[in-house]
């Protein structure tokens, strides 16, 4: 029994290691914009922006303080009248294409768009050759 109480005491005294800040989140990190249309365009944009702390999540998905600060930037910029594309460009200017989950055709990303078309053409060609030839024989 004494062991139990000691264990309990130790558990209660345990302090979490402070690996994150204790400051409250930025005003628009968790608060929606007053205008539903603006909030909607901010939400759609936030779902296609990469969280830089937790790189496989969007900033809409993440509870990292930095993602909250990024949401605040997005919402306050949208509120100030910037278009979602302007906000995205602002971030891409700073972090490169990596920050955006909405890839644009560029010198490095064109294979992403070209390869499916090439594969489709290749498949079509194969299909036409096989089926087309057989059709001729009948």
């Amino acid at each position, binding site marked *: 029994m004494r062991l139990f109480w000691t264990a309990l005491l130790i558990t209660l005294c345990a302090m979490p290691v402070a690996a994150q*800040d204790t*400051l409250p989140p930025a005003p628009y990190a968790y608060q929606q914009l007053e205008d539903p249309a603006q909030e909607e365009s901010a939400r759609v944009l936030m779902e296609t922006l990469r969280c830089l702390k937790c790189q496989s999540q969007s900033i809409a998905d993440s509870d990292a303080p930095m993602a909250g600060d990024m949401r605040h930037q997005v919402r306050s910029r949208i509120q100030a009248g910037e278009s979602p594309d302007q906000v995205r460009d602002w971030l891409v200017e*700073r*972090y490169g294409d990596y920050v955006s989950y909405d890839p644009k055709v560029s010198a490095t990303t064109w294979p992403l768009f070209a390869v499916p078309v090439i594969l489709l053409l290749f498949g079509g060609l194969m299909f036409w050759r096989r089926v087309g030839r057989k059709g001729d024989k009948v």
Partner: protein
Amino acid sequence: MKTLRILLWGAVLIACGLFGLFGYQLTQPRDEFVQSALVGQEIPPFDLPPATEARPGLSSADLADGSPKLLNVFASWCVPCAAEAPQLEALERSGAQIVAVAIRDRPEDVDRFLELYGNPFTRIGKDDISEVQLAIGSSGVPETFVIAGDGTITYQHIGDIRPEHVPQLLEELRKAGA
């Protein structure tokens, strides 16, 4: 029929090549660093209040006052920031001017951090919502930027400064005109 065969073998080769590439990439160490795309450009305008009573705040104008500087992005709650303190001290002893931005920090915590690990900074700005961090393309703490005398960002060091990084940062400062 022969061309078909060649095409099919071509497809097999492409698939093998792709799997080879995947296998190669899987054995490579992951690069999780997101470089700032603002290196080579002018620092965006900002003006931060002081993060501690001991030092004045920091604005972009302070960074364009003619002499090159190190801009250290840190936080008292960040463990590697404490680990790099001796290296910042060494850089200051070698003549580097170091200014800082404290991310999401309380003045009392900054004071305690500086008391524990030393204060090589001439100015410390207080950035409670990471706005300057986002504006300069920094994606975490600690990061250290080299800013030329005209306010141009010339170099970014991501992560804590280890002893082997000190000469390089001094070299980058020299290139920036120190």
